């Protein structure tokens, strides 16, 4: 249980194979932070979706993974940063089945459901930063927050 907030791990997302690196880093860090198998799988899956969005829509960027400490224990926060065209209509992009890349259209909306906290900052032509946070023990976290 480390007290000090560590430097975030930065994983570049430039090509298809970088997605594997993102998944592996998130999984390894989630395991070390005490995530259960289900929480771990959900966060890794969300990270996989968002990293792919960064690559396909943002033209590449990076993932920043850091351990955070909430009211109820440790968690993991992952930011996906790109300097692409931005998301013109965030609400539309977040609706199920909306896809501009020929996928299933569940990536963005689905990953929002897989994590506890989800934030999009997007500037037209100024890039996008999506930050997701998942807690190792989400149930006590929810009680703590409400």
């Amino acid at each position, binding site marked *: 249980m480390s007290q000090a907030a560590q430097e975030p791990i930065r994983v570049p997302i430039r090509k298809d194979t970088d997605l594997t690196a993102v998944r592996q880093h998130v999984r390894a860090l989630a395991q070390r932070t005490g995530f259960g198998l289900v929480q771990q799988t959900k966060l890794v*899956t969300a990270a996989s979706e968002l990293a792919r969005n960064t690559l396909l829509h943002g033209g590449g960027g990076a993932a920043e993974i850091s351990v955070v400490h909430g009211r109820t224990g440790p968690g993991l926060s992952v930011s996906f940063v790109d300097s692409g065209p931005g998301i013109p209509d965030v609400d539309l992009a977040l609706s199920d089945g909306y896809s501009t890349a020929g996928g299933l259209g569940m990536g963005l909306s689905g990953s929002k459901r897989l994590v506890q906290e989800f934030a999009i900052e997007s500037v037209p032509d100024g890039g996008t930063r999506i930050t997701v946070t998942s807690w190792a023990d989400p149930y006590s976290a929810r009680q703590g927050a409400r």
Partner: protein
Amino acid sequence: MTDGATDPAAAGSEAVADLLRRRGEQIAQRWADLPFFQTVFTVTRDEAVEAGHAVVDSLSAVAESGRVDDLEAVGFQPIREQLVAMTASRASSGLSTAQVDREVGALREAALELLEADTSRLGAEEVGEARVQLLTLFATLRVLVVDTMLQENQEIVLRQRQQLLEMATPVIKLWDRLVAVPLIGMLDSARSQVVMENLLEAIVEHKATIAILDITGVSTVDSLVAHHLMKTVASARLMGAECVISGIRPAIAQTIVQLGLDLGPVTTRASLADALEWALERRERKELPTRGNP
């Protein structure tokens, strides 16, 4: 760049070529005792000396052509293969690229010392120019060695990637007209293309009516993986084979639901054994009526 004999650089590299030709034997002898040669050619010392000779000859040819800073110089070609073998041998004894590079860097001392001892034949200015050319030549040799090591590594990576693509997607015949594909690792677009091709071919080959896709070994099922799986299932169906996806672990099942993926039309089972049971039951039910009219 080389502009006749008056060009000091050309004169310098000519002096270097001359030195390497005349003192080749001495240099090769001294190199034979350096780790880069000594540890590779362990059987006899003559072997190391001979290898050293080949390198000296090659360097001399490069100096003669005046292209001491050119990796593509023709003179380097004959020793490329030898360098690949030598660096591979050093790398397999656990040396990093940087360590091998340092060993190659140590080779220049022998030549430099001989050049200094040679001053009686050359003027001070010529020695200076020759030294510059000699240093450049050895710097190029170091780059060449690193370059061959990197190329070799890249080839290994490419080869392994190809092997992975082929190895990780076997199609197994489980029963008469029943095939299974155990999927392992991550299903990216390239992998899933291979899986689909292998599966469809196996369906034809084994006249399969049921195919089991087992995803026990797939670490992450995100929307792209699901998309690929569904496309594979749809293509198999077009060929008359029904698919069942097995190996859905509890964590994956919860993730798929929350992600909002609809595997609705696809039959799924928790384990390969369940899928096999389902497949066999299904075949029996289907085959009973057809057996009735031969």
